[in-house]
C-alpha cells in the first residue's frame, strides 16, 4: 500500500477534483478518508496526536490544515487563484470559459441543474462539459422522481425514465470514440448505461473509470452495485490500488462474505486508522456475524466522534433493540430525530423504538414513513413485516416481506419472515419453501435451521426424520439458545432410539455445565440419563446422575431417591443372585 503521505496528498487533490465537478458524495467520502489517516508521529508534537481520537472535529481540521506541507487552500479560497492545485487535471485557462463555468457551478450548487446546463451549453472546457453533462443527468433524475409520483396509475407506479439518458449516451459515446473522454465522463457514462440497463457495458466503462482515476468512490459504489455475484466480481480487471481494497471489502460484505470483508477492513485500518467509514463498515460486518457486543462498542465510539451522524445508525438501533436497551434506543432516536427527521434511517430508528415498546401500530407508521422516503429501503420492509407478524396481520406481513425479497432476493430475514407468517397460518408445508430459501442463503444460522425443524415437527406434517436432520445442522452451527440438542434428544426418544437420545442428552448436559446454566432442561437430561443408565446396568453412572438430581427440590428429588433405591437393589441382586 502507498505510504500515508502519498495517500494524503492524493486524497487532498481528489477532494478538490471531485467537488469542482459537483461529485459531492464522492468528495465527502474522500475527505472523510483523508481525515482518517493517522498523522505521522515524527512530524507532530505529542499534544497533536493526543487529540487524534475523541477530539472535536474542529480541532482535527485545524491540525490537518496546520500540518499540510503543500499549502492546501482553505475552503474559502477559489481554485482559480491557486493554479498550482489543479495539478494533474487538464484545465482550460480561457478566462471567459471560466466565468461561464463559475456561473454554471454556482447554479449547480443551488441545485438549479437545467439552468447550469444551459449556461454551460457552448463551453468546450472539459470541466465545464462534464458539469453540463452531470447537471443534465441530475436534472433528468430529479424530474424522474417527480414523475414517479405524478404518474402513479391504477396498477401502481410505473417506472419513470430519465429523459436525458438518450442524448447523454450519444454525447458520451462520441466523446469516448474521439478519445477525449476522461475518467469523470466515464463515470457519468457508466451511470447512464447502468440506468439504461446495459449492465455489461456499464461495468466495463466503470472499470475503465476507476482504473484511470481511483479516488472517485461513487464510481466504485456503482461498480459494486453491478457485481451481484462473486464471478462477476472476480472477472473485473482492476489495477492494484488501495481504493481497490475499499471496493473489495465493500463488495465482499454485500456478497455476504463477512469474514473476508472484515479482514480487508482491518488491513485498511492500518493506514486509515481513524476513518469513521471503516469503523462503521466493520460494525456492519460484525453485526452480520451477530457480534452485537462489539458492534455496540464501535457505535458508541463513532457517536462520540461524530455525534450528528445518521448513516448506519439504523443498524445500531437494531443492536440496541436486540439487546433491549430501552433508554439507549430512545436516546438515539431522540438525537437522530433532532438532527434530521426526514431521513429513512431516522424513521426506522423510531419505528424500532416503538416496536420495542410494544406499540406496533405506531411502529408501522414510522416504517411506512421511512418507505415513503425510500421505497427500496430493504430493512424497513423487513422490519415492517415483523411488526405485522406481531400484530397478527399475516397477509400484510407476507406482502411486506415479499416486497423486501423482491428488492433483494438475498435477504434471508425476509424469507424467514415469510416462512414464519405461513407457519402461523397453519400451512407448515407451504412455509417450508421459504425456510429452505432462507437456510440456503444463511446456512450457518442455527435459528433458521431450528425454525425449519419445528416446521417439520408440527403435528400436521410430523416428518420427524427431516426435523432431526435440521436440528443436527442447527447443533453444528453454534446454537446459542441451545434448543437443538435438547430437541434432538427428545425426538430420538420419541422414535424409540434411546441410545441416540442418551448421547444428545449427555452433550446437552455437558454444554449446560460448560455455560453454567440451570433449568428444567437440566433436570430432564439428568432424569433421563439416570433412568437410561439404570436400564443399561451402568449403575455407577446412574448413581452419579441421581446424586446430582438430589440437589433439586421438588418431585425430582423423590424420584431420584427411589431410583437410587432401585439401583442399590439391582446391584444387590447382581452381586448376590438369589
Amino acid at each position: 500500500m502507498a505510504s500515508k503521505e502519498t495517500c494524503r496528498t492524493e486524497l487532498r487533490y481528489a477532494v478538490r477534483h471531485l467537488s469542482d465537478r459537483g461529485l459531492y458524495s464522492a468528495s465527502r467520502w474522500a475527505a472523510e478518508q483523508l481525515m482518517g489517516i493517522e498523522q505521522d508521529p515524527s512530524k507532530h508534537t505529542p499534544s497533536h496526536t493526543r487529540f487524534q481520537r475523541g477530539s472535536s472535529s474542529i480541532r482535527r481540521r485545524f491540525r490537518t490544515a496546520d500540518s499540510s506541507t503543500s499549502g492546501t487552500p482553505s475552503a474559502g479560497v477559489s481554485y482559480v487563484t491557486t493554479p498550482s492545485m489543479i495539478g494533474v487535471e487538464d484545465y482550460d485557462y480561457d478566462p471567459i470559459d471560466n466565468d461561464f463555468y463559475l456561473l454554471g457551478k454556482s447554479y449547480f450548487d443551488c441545485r438549479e441543474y437545467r439552468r447550469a446546463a444551459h449556461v454551460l451549453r457552448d463551453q468546450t472546457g472539459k470541466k465545464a462539459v462534464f458539469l453540463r453533462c452531470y447537471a443534465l443527468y441530475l436534472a433528468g433524475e430529479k424530474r424522474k422522481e417527480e414523475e414517479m409520483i405524478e404518474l402513479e396509475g391504477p396498477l401502481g407506479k410505473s417506472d419513470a425514465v430519465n429523459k436525458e439518458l438518450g442524448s447523454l449516451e450519444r454525447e458520451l459515446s462520441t466523446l469516448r470514440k474521439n478519445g477525449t473522454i476522461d475518467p469523470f465522463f466515464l463515470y457519468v457514462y457508466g451511470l447512464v448505461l447502468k440506468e439504461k440497463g446495459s449492465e455489461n457495458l456499464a461495468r466495463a466503462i466503470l472499470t475503465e473509470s476507476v482504473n484511470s482515476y481511483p479516488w472517485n468512490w461513487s464510481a466504485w459504489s456503482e461498480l459494486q452495485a453491478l457485481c451481484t455475484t462473486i464471478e462477476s466480481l472476480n472477472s473485473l480487471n482492476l489495477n492494484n490500488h488501495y481504493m481497490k481494497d475499499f471496493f473489495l471489502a465493500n463488495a465482499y460484505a454485500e456478497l455476504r462474505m463477512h469474514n473476508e470483508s472484515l479482514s480487508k477492513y482491518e488491513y485498511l485500518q492500518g493506514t486509515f486508522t481513524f476513518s469513521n467509514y471503516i469503523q462503521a463498515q466493520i460494525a456492519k460486518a460484525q453485526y452480520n456475524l451477530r457480534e452485537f457486543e462489539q458492534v455496540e462498542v464501535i457505535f458508541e465510539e463513532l457517536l462520540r466522534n461524530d455525534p450528528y451522524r445518521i448513516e448506519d445508525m439504523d443498524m445500531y438501533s437494531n443492536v440496541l433493540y436486540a439487546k433491549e436497551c430501552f433508554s439507549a434506543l430512545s436516546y438515539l432516536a431522540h438525537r437522530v430525530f433532532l438532527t434530521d427527521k426526514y431521513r429513512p434511517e431516522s424513521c426506522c430508528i423510531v419505528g424500532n423504538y416503538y416496536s420495542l415498546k410494544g406499540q406496533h401500530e405506531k411502529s408501522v407508521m414510522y416504517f411506512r414513513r421511512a418507505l415513503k422516503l425510500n421505497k427500496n429501503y430493504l430493512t424497513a420492509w423487513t422490519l415492517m413485516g415483523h411488526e405485522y407478524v406481531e400484530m397478527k396481520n399475516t397477509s400484510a406481513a407476507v406482502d411486506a416481506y415479499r416486497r423486501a425479497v423482491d428488492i433483494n432476493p438475498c435477504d434471508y430475514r425476509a424469507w424467514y419472515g415469510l416462512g414464519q407468517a405461513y407457519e402461523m397460518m397453519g400451512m407448515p408445508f407451504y412455509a417450508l419453501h421459504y425456510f429452505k430459501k432462507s437456510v440456503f442463503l444463511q446456512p450457518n444460522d442455527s435459528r433458521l435451521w431450528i425454525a425449519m425443524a419445528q416446521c417439520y415437527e408440527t403435528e400436521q406434517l410430523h416428518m420427524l426424520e427431516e426435523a432431526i436432520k435440521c436440528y443436527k445442522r442447527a447443533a453444528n452451527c453454534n446454537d446459542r439458545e441451545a434448543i437443538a440438542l435438547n430437541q434432538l434428544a427428545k425426538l430420538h426418544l420419541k422414535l424409540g432410539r434411546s441410545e441416540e437420545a442418551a448421547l444428545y442428552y449427555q452433550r446437552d448436559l455437558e454444554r449446560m455445565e460448560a455455560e453454567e446454566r440451570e433449568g428444567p432442561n437440566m433436570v430432564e437430561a439428568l432424569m433421563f440419563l439416570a433412568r437410561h443408565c439404570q436400564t443399561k446396568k451402568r449403575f455407577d453412572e446412574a448413581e452419579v446422575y441421581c446424586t446430582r438430581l438430589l440437589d433439586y427440590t421438588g418431585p425430582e428429588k423423590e424420584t431420584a431417591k427411589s431410583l437410587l433405591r432401585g439401583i442399590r437393589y439391582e446391584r444387590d441382586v447382581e452381586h448376590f443372585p438369589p
Partner: protein
Amino acid sequence: MATGISKSPVSFTLTPHKISICILVQVYAPPSQNSTPFPFSSVSQHNRLGIFILSLTKVSEGIFEPTLDELIAQLSEIGGLLNHWLNDHLTRRLSSLASPDDLFNFFTDLRGILGGSDSNVMDDDQIMLDPNSNIGMFTRRCLLAFNQMPFEGICHLLTNIGTYCKDALSSYPPCGISHLDDPTDDPNASLEFENMEMENFIYEKASDDDDEESRMGIGRIPFHGHGSKAFSELIEDGDSSSRPRLEHMDTTALSSSDMSKGIGSVNGTFLHTNWQVQGYLSEQANAIEKLGSSFPLNAFESTLRKLQKLAPDLHRVHFLRYLNSLYHDDYPGALENLHRYFDYSGVTMACSIFSIWSKNELMKQVASAIFHGTEGLEYVPPPSGCSTLGRYESALLCLGMMHFHFGHPKQALEVLTEAVRVSQQYSDDTCLAYTLVAISNLYSEIGISKMSRIIGSSSWPVAGMGTSLSAQQQLFVLLQRSLKRAESYKLKRLVASIHLEIAKYDLTVRVFLFVLVQIVFVFISWVTGAIYLVAILVSARLSGVRAFVPQAAFVIQISEIHVQRPLLSFGPKASLKLRTCPPNVHKEIWLSSHLINEFGDESSVMTIEGAFCTAWLKNLKNPTGSLIFTEGNENRNVFQFCAQPSSVPGSVLQLLGSSYLVRAASWEMYGSAPLARMNALVYATCFADSSSLSDAALAYSKLIQHLAVYKGYKEAFAALKIAEEKFLCVSKSRILLAKLQLLHECALHRGHLKLAQQLCDKLGVLASPVTGVDLELKTEASLRNARTLLAANQYSQPLYGSDVLKMVVQPLCGG
C-alpha cells in the same frame, strides 16, 4: 361495462391514443348534423366507423396501445374513400393540441356531442351520442378522467401527444402532410384555419427534430429507429444481442398463429386500459394451456417483463409467468412465481384471476372453470373482514396441482392435505370442494393403493372412512362426497366435472351389461350454428347406427377387447368388485353436459366482447379485406369460422368437449366402435379449438386407431401423417404413442416379431423411470410386450411367463 373491474376513476388514464379515439368519435357524431353527417357518403360507411371506434375501445390484443401509425393504417382499411380525409383530420387535430388550453377546449367540444339523459326530447334529424351507449360511456370516461386530471397530468398528456405525433410522422408517408394544404373538405375550416400557421410550424419543428434524432440514432443505435424508444431501451439489456434473435425465432415459429403480432413487436408506450390488459392476459392464459410447450416462452416472458415494469401492482403477471414456466416444464420458475403471486395477491385481490392446472383433462376443466372466474374461488365476494382468506387455500391447491403436474405425487398429496386442513380452518367450502376433486384425481391417476402407502395412517382427509373399504370404493366415496359438496355450493362447472369423473370411474369398472339407453343431444340448443350443423349431421348418422348395434355384436366386441386391448384407457385397469352399469355412466355424462346448458346466458360477456373486437380488427388486416362487411361471403371455410370467438365461454366448451371424449371412450369400452368414432369425430371437429392440444391429439389418435381397425393400416398411416403435421410440436404426445401402437400392431400383424419387440421397447422408454408416474403408458408398454411374447409363442418359457405377469401387474398395483 368495465365497472366491475375498474372501480376507482384513477384506473382510467388518458393517453394520446384515447384522444385519437375521441377525435374519431367527434367525426362519428358531429354536433348538429343531419342523419348522414358531412364526410360520410353512406350510412354503412358511417356505421363502419362506429364499429371501428367500438372495437378500438375494447380490443384486447397486446398490452400496448397502438401508435398513430398503426391507427392510421387500420383507419385506412375501413375508410375507403374517406381514408385521406380521416387521416388528415386526425393528425391535424392531434397536432393542433399544443397548449393546455387547447386540451380544455377539445374536451369542452367533446362534451357537446353527448346527448342529454332524456332521450325523448331528442331531435330526429340530429345525431346525438347516447351517453349510455358503449361509445358514449367511453367518451364520458374520457371526460371524467380529464376533469379529474391535475395540472401535472395535463402536462404529461401534452408531452405524450407530442411524441405520439412525432413518432408517427417520422415514418408516415408525406401524403398526410400534402393534404394538409387542402382545407376544402374540412367542416370546421374556419376554426382550423386560425391554427394553420402554428400547425405548420409544429410540423416543421417536429420533422426537424426527428431528422436530427434519426441522424444521430442511425450512427449509434440503429436498434431504436423510431417510436417506442423508451421501451426498446428498457429491454435492451446486457444480453440484448441474443434476445432479439430469440424473440425472432419464437415469433417465426408462431407466425401462422394469430398472436405473433401482440408478442413480437412493441406497439407503443402506453398500456391499454386495465380491463383490456386483463382481457389480453386471460386470452394468453388460454393460449398457453391450449398450445402447451409450443407456446413461445421467451417472447411472452419479455412481454410480461415489460408489463411488469409499467404496472408493478398488476400481480396477475406473476401468475401468467407461473403458467408459462409450468407449461415449459421449468420447475424452479413455476415454483417461484406461484409463491410470488400468492404472496402478493392478498392486498389487491379485487381482480385476480385464478387457474390451476393438472395433467389430466378433468382438472383442466376445473382449472378453466376457476380461471374464467364466474364462480372462481375469489370472485365470490367474501364476507367483510376476511377478504383475503381465500387465497391461502388457493395457493395450496395450486401448488398441489403443480407438484402433480411435475410428477411429485408425494408432495402433491402433502400440499393438498394441507389445503384441505386450511380450507376447513377458514371454512372455505368452495376451495374444499375443489381440493377434494383434486385429491380424487390424484388417486385415480396414481392408484389408491400406492397413495395410502404414501400417506401412512395419520392425518389425511378421508381417514375417517377407515380401511374397511377397498381402495376403489374409497375413491368412489370421495367422489360422491365432493359431488354433494359441489352441488350444495352451486359450483356448476365443478359438478359437471365430477359427473364426468364419476363416469370415467364407472368406465374403469368393466361390467359387461350392455344397455343402450341415452343418447343425449339435448344440450345443443345453445351451441352456435356450426356445431348445430355438425350435430344434426351426426345425429342423422347416429339414427342409422343405433339399429346397427345389437347385443350380439357386442359379444364379439368383448372378445375383441380381450385380445386387442381397448384402444384407449382412462385410469387404472384393475378389475373391480363395485358393480356399476353403463346406464349410470351415460347418466353421469348426460348430467355433466346437461349442466352446461345453464352457462348459455351467464358467460363472461366482457372477455368475449374483447375477443370479438380483436378478431374484427385482425380481419381488417387480412389481405382478403373485411370478412364481416363483405356481403355474400358465404364460402368462408369452416376453420375461419371456428376461429371466430363464440359466445360460449371457453371452459364450458372444453368441458363439453371432454364429455364427448369420455363418451367416445365409453362407447369403445362397451363395444360400439362406430359410436366411439363418431364421438371422437364430433370432438375433433367442434371442440378442437377450445380444447387443449393434448386433448385434441387424443381424439385424433383415437380416430387413427379406428381407421387402422376398420380401414386397414394404409389409411391409418395416411391419417397419422396428417395428424403428425398438425401436432408437430408436442413432444411425448399422444400422437407419438398412437404411432408406436400402430406400428406395433402392424408388425404383429405381419409377423415381424423383432420389429414388434423393438417398438415395445421404444414405448417403454417413453415412460418416465420414476415409479408412480405415467402408469398408463407403462401398462400399455408391458401389455404390448406381453402380446409380442405371446405371439412369439414364448409363453411356455417360465422366465418370460413370470416376466409378463409381473410387467402387467406391477404398474397396475402401482409399484
